[in-house]
């Protein structure tokens, strides 16, 4: 490991050269920034990962069952486990998906589950990402470069090889493919995750395409080849969000989608990874109910715990939130990427009152969580080794017949001392995640 630290600058230079960058479009300007890599890995022991693996596949299985239920029978609403307004007021709920069963019944093929480890060393799930979670490519390429920089490190330590991600992703696409080629749909090179789109296409052998390269003709989706040589598409790993996916069904002004792709998906003639409408299950308000979903659909107790969460929607919780405002972190359910997260204690007088009033007026819009004291991880700073807050995004791949937890993950850390917002869009860095093989 120490050996690896000597190569930190080389590895970062290579990452920059390969285009491991983060594009951020803010206030009408596009800025690309590097995603700093730290060579000290997060290490997860074999036994600990076995526990996480069990909990993660259980959680993702329940979430997939929930999605099938919501867009189908709605048993969980009829049985009163989740109040229906939580579903229908969620911006991720798409009525257009009502009654659709995606190919092989899979909704969330690629799930990114964000966890943190507390100082008590217990793991907590902070967030489920079931729409188009990004980040798998970063530890993937970083591992590749680290292996080159210091082969002996990987010989001496028993680390699960994480380079199987591409094979797992391909298997997932193949298993739901309805007949045709695999395509990765990217919004284009200005997208924050364009590096990942191109990297995964290269590694899985899928065709990288933008909306203009694809067309629906009749009942099928085609990749437009040269000279009218069109190829049928059987699985579309689309890295375009639901609202921009099809201007004929969703946002009309979208130029990055494919007109009528939703119609042929509905007919079962192409698989979309992930399925549209998944946002209803990773809504911050629905998050509260995930452990209940596990019990409801699987008849098991949830292995993984949520961070203790309160829903101001419930009167009892609202009273608690008002009383313990300073000890809680308040999250706006409509925001993502670390925006809309406010620590109650960070606000003063009028500002605090304003947020309290807002929570009282629009309780459905917020959740409140106990502040978890994250376990700090060692990070190599300019001045040596320092301790920083970090989270872990674990990737769970669900195909037609199996749920597979990738033996690695994206560890993101804050570069500011004491700060627990680790999002890359907020200037954080990343680490490789080593899962020990014995």
């Amino acid at each position, binding site marked *: 490991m120490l050996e690896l630290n000597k190569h930190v600058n080389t590895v970062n230079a290579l990452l920059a050269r390969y285009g491991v960058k983060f594009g951020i479009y803010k206030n009408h300007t596009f800025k690309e920034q590097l995603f700093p890599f730290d060579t000290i890995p997060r290490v997860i022991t074999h036994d600990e990962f076995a526990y996480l693996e069990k909990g993660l596949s259980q959680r993702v299985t329940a979430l997939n069952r929930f999605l099938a239920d919501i867009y189908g029978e709605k048993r969980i609403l009829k049985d009163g486990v989740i109040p229906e307004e939580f579903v229908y007021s969620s911006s991720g709920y798409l*009525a257009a998906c*009502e009654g659709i069963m995606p190919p092989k019944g899979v909704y969330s093929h690629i799930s990114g589950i964000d966890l943190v480890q507390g100082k008590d060393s217990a793991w907590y799930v902070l967030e489920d990402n079931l729409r188009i979670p990004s980040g798998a490519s970063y530890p993937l390429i970083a591992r590749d470069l680290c292996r080159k920089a210091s082969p002996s490190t990987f010989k001496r330590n028993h680390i699960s090889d994480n380079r199987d991600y591409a094979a797992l992703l391909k298997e997932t696409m193949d298993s739901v493919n309805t007949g045709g080629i695999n395509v990765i749909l990217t919004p284009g090179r200005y997208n924050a995750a364009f590096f990942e789109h191109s990297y995964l296409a290269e590694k899985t052998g899928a065709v990288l395409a933008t909306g203009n390269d694809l067309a629906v003709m009749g009942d099928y989706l085609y990749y437009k080849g040269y000279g009218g040589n069109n190829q049928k598409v059987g699985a579309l790993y689309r890295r375009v969000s639901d609202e921009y996916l099809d*201007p004929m069904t969703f946002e009309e002004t979208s130029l990055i989608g494919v007109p009528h792709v939703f119609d042929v998906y509905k007919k079962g003639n192409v698989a979309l990874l992930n399925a549209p409408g998944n946002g209803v299950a990773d809504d911050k308000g629905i998050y509260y109910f995930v452990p209940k979903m596990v019990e409801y659909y699987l008849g098991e107790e949830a292995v993984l715990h949520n961070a203790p969460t309160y829903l101001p929607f419930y009167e009892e919780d609202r009273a608690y939130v008002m009383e313990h405002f300073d000890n809680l972190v308040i999250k706006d359910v409509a925001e993502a990427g670390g925006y809309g997260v406010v620590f109650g204690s960070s606000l003063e007088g009028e500002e605090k009152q304003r947020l309290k009033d807002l929570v009282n007026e629009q309780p459905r819009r917020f959740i409140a969580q106990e502040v978890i004291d994250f376990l700090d991880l060692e990070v190599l700073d300019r001045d040596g080794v320092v301790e920083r807050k970090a989270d872990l995004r674990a990737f769970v791949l669900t195909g037609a017949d199996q749920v597979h937890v990738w033996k690695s993950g994206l560890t993101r850390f804050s570069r500011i001392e004491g700060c627990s917002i680790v999002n890359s869009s907020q200037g954080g860095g990343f680490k490789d995640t080593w899962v020990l093989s014995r």
Partner: protein
Amino acid sequence: MKKLRFLYQTWYTFDIPIYDHSYTLKIFPRENERQYIESLVETMSYGSSHSYSFDAFGNKTVYGYMGEPHDQFGFEISGIAVVDGEKKERDSRLLSLFRSPSSMTQPAQVLREALKAACDNCLEKSCYKKSFDKLTTVEKVMYLSDCCHESLAYTPEVTNIFTSAAEALTLGRGVCQDYAHILLAFLRLLHIPARYVVGFMSGEGYTHAWVEAWCDGCWQGVDPTNAKLIDEGYIKLSHGRDYNDTVVCKGHFYGQAKQSQKIRVQVEELPG
């Protein structure tokens, strides 16, 4: 029972050719308990490929693609519908969705206040001479439809397809779409499932919009623009949560063309 012959034409003209044109049309009369389509003829500029589909609400659509430059696009649908006013639709799918606010029927303060005033004044204002909570569901729907009718002055071209229920009510003017949205917002505030309906009405030269409310196990159609329950002169095309779910013609094309649109709707009763 009535037999109605209907004809619906829409023709778009573009001042310069457009291309890469995708379209979706929701122009097929629905078949249900109250409405049977005896014959149907569909004529349209399909383009290089087209197909049929159903949306989440069971509305039939035709969609297609016209890649080559063209400066006209249109369709015509005609046929005979048999409408039985005695029968009601009983499809209970998605009731919970139709009970929830939609984007154009968000429960703004102005709607809550208007609804409260309507409920409070029910005893003296309504023809039932009862307080609101004593009314049956159908009576509530009819009374609120009347209130909604009074709250707007029918005025074309002051609102548009983006106008929400709250905006129309604040303005106090609007067209059938606005009446329907306000009534939907009222009913949903009372947790009565309600849906937006597009169709034809005898004697109108355009498509019309009204509301269906879930009353004691079936859907009751009510027309707040004309302050009456729907009768056998109404032919239903499609339904959804609000206008957005029932757009008759949606298109996406390239070319900075100015477009003009001609619509013709004819509905006439045939002798039984």
